[in-house]
């Protein structure tokens, strides 16, 4: 994509502009709160208090953040190769099959540290499988990845309803879900991590997959900026024609990137299935795949930005529940609005304030240059 904008210093590019965009998104969200007839500052207070007020709340915030780190990384990896993977939702959903199969198979005979690696492999396998087809179709048949991944989200949803109502449901049960896993299918909580800071995790399902998410973030950083494959992905993302000249096989990179992206999205399933519900339920993803788009855009597709962005959305989800509890006219759908506004201002309108900021910096630069000149004379 051609960017007809002048280069700005790093702290403006990666710090100031995202912050301004975020501030505008929250400002508009505040207007919606006003429109509903509530006080936006009171809502903000409940948001912050609900997310950080107690050890348990922090545990919930980080539990949601874990999920969003996975889906955010999934979208970001694809972004680097110039691919828009909008199918994280479906990939995470299908990835759940891998987690559920591992747990259903071994949970009664093996401890969690044997089941967990298998579940990781399973979730990555199924998530990558669900992303492989759109990737392959884009690479070999030229079908647009955005459209195919949207279609695959819907197909995944139908497939999972079928599997949960007919195949994975225990006999004699009516609810569309697998049986509850025994001890081996339940991940240990990270209560010790919070107790270092003197916090009590309470009932929050903050579990070990948070550490896996951090490891995945580090792995993505290594992959994108420290490996040959990552270099090839970025080259293709910046300029497909340059990549072609350099002898990079586009179709290979497309398929591999999509599979990595799908695998990361699939790993998201570990957190709710093995960490909270201890069974696979209908719609356990709950839009986390789409939150990943907002997280990746806000985090500028860099793991160092994605982790804070994921925590921010964790705050919104946990604090939003508190707002819904304290202020009944603001339901949790408020989060969906904020999510949309963040995607709009940090994504589609990311350049809205750039000309003004560039001008401000150009003027400052000129003044500085003028000062140097007068001193020199």
């Amino acid at each position: 994509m051609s960017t007809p904008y002048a280069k700005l210093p790093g702290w403006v590019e990666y710090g100031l502009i995202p912050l301004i965009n975020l501030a505008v998104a929250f400002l508009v969200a505040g207007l919606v709160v006003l429109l509903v007839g509530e006080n936006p500052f009171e809502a903000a207070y409940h948001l912050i208090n609900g997310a950080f007020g107690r050890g348990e709340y922090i545990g919930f915030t980080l539990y949601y953040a874990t999920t969003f780190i996975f889906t955010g990384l999934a979208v970001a990896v694809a972004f680097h190769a110039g691919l828009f993977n909008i199918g994280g939702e479906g990939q995470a959903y299908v990835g759940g099959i891998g987690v559920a199969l591992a747990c259903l198979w071994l949970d009664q005979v093996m401890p969690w540290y044997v089941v967990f690696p298998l579940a990781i492999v399973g979730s990555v396998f199924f998530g990558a499988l669900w992303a492989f087809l759109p990737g392959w179709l884009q690479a070999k048949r030229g079908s647009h990845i955005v459209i195919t991944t949207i279609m695959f989200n819907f197909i995944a949803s139908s497939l999972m309803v079928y599997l949960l109502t007919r195949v994975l449901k225990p006999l004699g049960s009516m609810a569309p879900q697998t049986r509850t896993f025994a001890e081996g299918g339940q991940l240990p909580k990270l209560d010790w991590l919070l107790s270092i800071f003197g916090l009590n995790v309470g009932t929050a399902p903050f579990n070990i997959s948070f550490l896996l998410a951090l490891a995945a973030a580090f792995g993505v950083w290594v992959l994108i900026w420290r490996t040959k494959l990552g270099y090839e992905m970025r080259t293709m993302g910046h300029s497909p024609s340059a990549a072609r000249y350099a002898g990079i096989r586009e179709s290979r990179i497309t398929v591999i990137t999509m599979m990595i992206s799908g695998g990361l999205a699939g790993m998201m399933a570990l957190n709710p299935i093995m960490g909270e519900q201890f069974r696979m339920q209908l719609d356990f993803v709950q839009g986390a795949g789409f939150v990943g788009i907002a997280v990746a855009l806000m985090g500028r597709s860099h793991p160092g930005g994605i982790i804070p962005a994921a925590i921010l959305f964790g705050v919104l989800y946990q604090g939003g529940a508190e707002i819904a509890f304290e202020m009944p006219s603001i339901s949790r759908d408020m989060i969906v609005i904020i999510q949309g506004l963040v995607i709009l201002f940090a994504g589609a309108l990311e350049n809205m304030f750039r000309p003004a900021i560039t001008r401000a910096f150009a003027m400052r630069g000129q003044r500085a240059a003028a000062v140097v000149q007068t001193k020199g004379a």
Partner: protein
Amino acid sequence: MDFFHVLVVLLESTIRVSVPLVFAALAGLFTERAGVFDIGLEGKMLGAAFAAGAVAAVTQSVWMGLLAAILISILLSLVHGYASITQRGNQIVSGVAINFIVAGSTVILGEAWFRQGGRTPALAEGARFQTINLPGADAVREVPVLGPIYADLLSGHFLLTYLAFAMVPASWWILYRTRFGLRLRAVGENPGAVDTAGISVIWLRYRAVICCGILCGFAGAYLSLAMTAGFVKGMTAGKGYIALAALIFAKWRPKNVMFACLLFGFLDALAIRLQGTPLPLVGQVPVQLMQALPYILTVILLAGFIGKAIPPKAGGVPYVKER
């Protein structure tokens, strides 16, 4: 005769569920032919349905509801236009954003204004569209074969239904037989050439986006003022995406759009009809398979196994005037 009767009922419900698809897919046709991708059809339709339901409930006037639907839908289209035409942002990202903003705000505002769990109040007779009986429908009902086709299949629909199917040739005429249409298609294929000819690419694309808004407004109004009596949260239920699939399936051509929408509508009607009844030869078809079929068909088409769907060449690319 029994089979014939079932077929007429099936086709009648096919028409009923196809209408919002036809409006929305034609809406997408206008913007995408002008080079602006739009996956925000779903959001615009939902926003329009909410505006229609809310305004019609307050004013007790179906026409005010329709007007509100169209205005809100145009407004949302202009947000998409501003982001993707003026600000040269990513068009997919903008569409996703609009879908989320609308999905959330219709529930929040609906709950705050009407307090009925995200619904708008049920509309009285004057505040929603009534079905129209074509002249002589009752008289010819007894005529074999042609009677039921006229009386049950063609007659007894809403005004918006007839408008939707009239919009198909109208869109064809606008796109293929007027100067505006020619330029609109040109701007989706080669905006540089249009700019060289001294025509504003920006203004043309904005007009295409407004056309899209109007048509999505009709789609939304149909959902909450005709199909049901009031707005229910999330009532578009993915219809915007099915319309998008139909648009691609139709290879961005008006007449094909209608047939694609009818096909997807037929699958929908059939899925409801076949629920729980086994078919000869194949046995019972899972209803989920029927629901997924439009998406699967679109994927197969996109893969080039049924002809080739070639999108407008400049689609998705913001236009940067050379300096």
